[in-house]
């Protein structure tokens, strides 16, 4: 079972990111489960969402304390929400940041990507969730980029979908380039 925790702020599409990730896994005929941090997500407040991906039916109903992967949509929450706590050895950390992180946990493959910049450029709005999923697919290869694209289509439509898709592809190429 592959467990992912996504950190960010209310209004940045953190919950939608977890949902899209679970849809992408579903499209690859896998079992997946996504759920928010069950709080009242106030605009700006730190927020967490979770996603489990597995080949067997997922029955477990507990929070994810030791994730295999972390997506940080807004690096300013790293400190206040202890976003990097509990990451498993050999895990993956994808951070939305235009500059490298000052500190990061041991033997974990960490990547930074300016998802907000890419989102602003391709989508015109600073919502980084679809972009980061593109990066996530490249970093972990737990899901394919095509499934991410199809998942984006379930959440957005028309021009907005196309823009998010191209943004996700840019992130995918960028991260796979770095691999």
């Amino acid at each position, binding site marked *: 079972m592959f467990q992912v925790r996504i950190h960010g702020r*209310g*209004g940045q599409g953190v919950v939608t990111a977890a949902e899209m990730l679970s849809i992408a896994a579903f499209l690859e005929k896998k079992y997946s489960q996504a759920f928010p941090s069950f709080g*009242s997500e*106030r*605009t*700006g*407040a730190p927020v967490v969402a979770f996603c489990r991906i597995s080949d067997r039916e997922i029955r477990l109903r507990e929070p994810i304390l030791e994730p295999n992967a972390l997506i940080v949509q807004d690096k300013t929450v790293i400190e206040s929400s202890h976003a990097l706590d509990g990451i498993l050895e050999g895990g993956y950390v994808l951070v939305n940041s235009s500059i490298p992180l000052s500190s990061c946990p041991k033997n974990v493959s960490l990547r930074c990507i300016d998802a907000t910049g890419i989102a602003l450029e391709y989508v015109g709005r600073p919502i980084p969730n679809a972009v980061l999923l593109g990066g996530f697919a490249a970093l972990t290869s737990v899901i394919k980029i095509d499934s991410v694209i199809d998942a984006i289509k379930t959440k957005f439509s028309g021009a907005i979908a196309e823009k998010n898709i191209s943004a996700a592809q840019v992130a995918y190429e960028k991260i796979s380039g770095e691999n």
Partner: protein
Amino acid sequence: MSNFPLGNIGGTPTVQSDFARPNSLTGGHRGCQGCGEALGARCAIDAAHQTTGGKILVVNATGCLEVFSCCFPENSWSVPWLHSLFGNAPAVATGVAAALRSRGQDSIRVIAQGGDGATYDIGMGCLSGMFDRNDDVLYICYDNQAYMNTGVQRSGATPPLARTATTLPNKSYLGSDPQTGKNLPEIAMAHGIPYVATASIGNIRDLEQKVSRAINIRGSRYIQIHVPCPLGWGYPTAETIRIARLAVQCGLYPLFEGEYGKLVGSTPVEEPIPVESYLRPQRRFAHLFGKNVSANAVGVLQNIANGNMEKYRLNWEILDA
């Protein structure tokens, strides 16, 4: 509308500009960035606190204000505060006032407050009962025009043609049905209670004056404060005050006062603006400016605004012309 700054430049200094203001709702609360309701609450309760020398008890209905201001271990209130349920705040306040009367402590004033959901809908029965008995309570409704805490569902205060989670527009449906909705200030006045007023955080000086006038009146009083919500209405968080001003300037949110059921005054609108300049910056009205939307969609709201201008005599020039 005297929109001088809040300090002593131009107008009389407001309570909010006083360095020693009570700060009834203080920092660290969990309201969204740019929350109009948090500001409205501080302004209203501070004004009441200042007028009565701090002799106020506050009863709060369930809702955004209650959830983000008091969740263990964080309490943002600096005044005595009681939260019971969603729909019973007016009745609970009646009880608090009765207790004070029984102890002969009439100098302590009781304020009940809630959002538009608690006031227009689920608490309407208790509110009407309180007015019916003319209980000595000032009810303050923070009107952000939908159920924001549960994710922007329509309430009785949702304006015509607005998008909410339960009034999603599509090809044939343009948002909240203009034939529906309540006018609570008018309903309150119909109860013949001593004082009813509408106010806005776009004009805090006007708001404070109305609260301190109301707090000194005995019997039931109702003040409704327009408090824009960046999340629910869809505009940048920094524009909360600007949006509030535009609502009043275009006539869709008339500021007026009533006593014993009769209109006695209104805050004049010096330079009225078309409703479009108030609607366009908000995503909840974006669908009215879509491609294949007929022009008279905005016309419906403009007629309402024009009606308010006349009914509440908001702009003397227009009326005299």
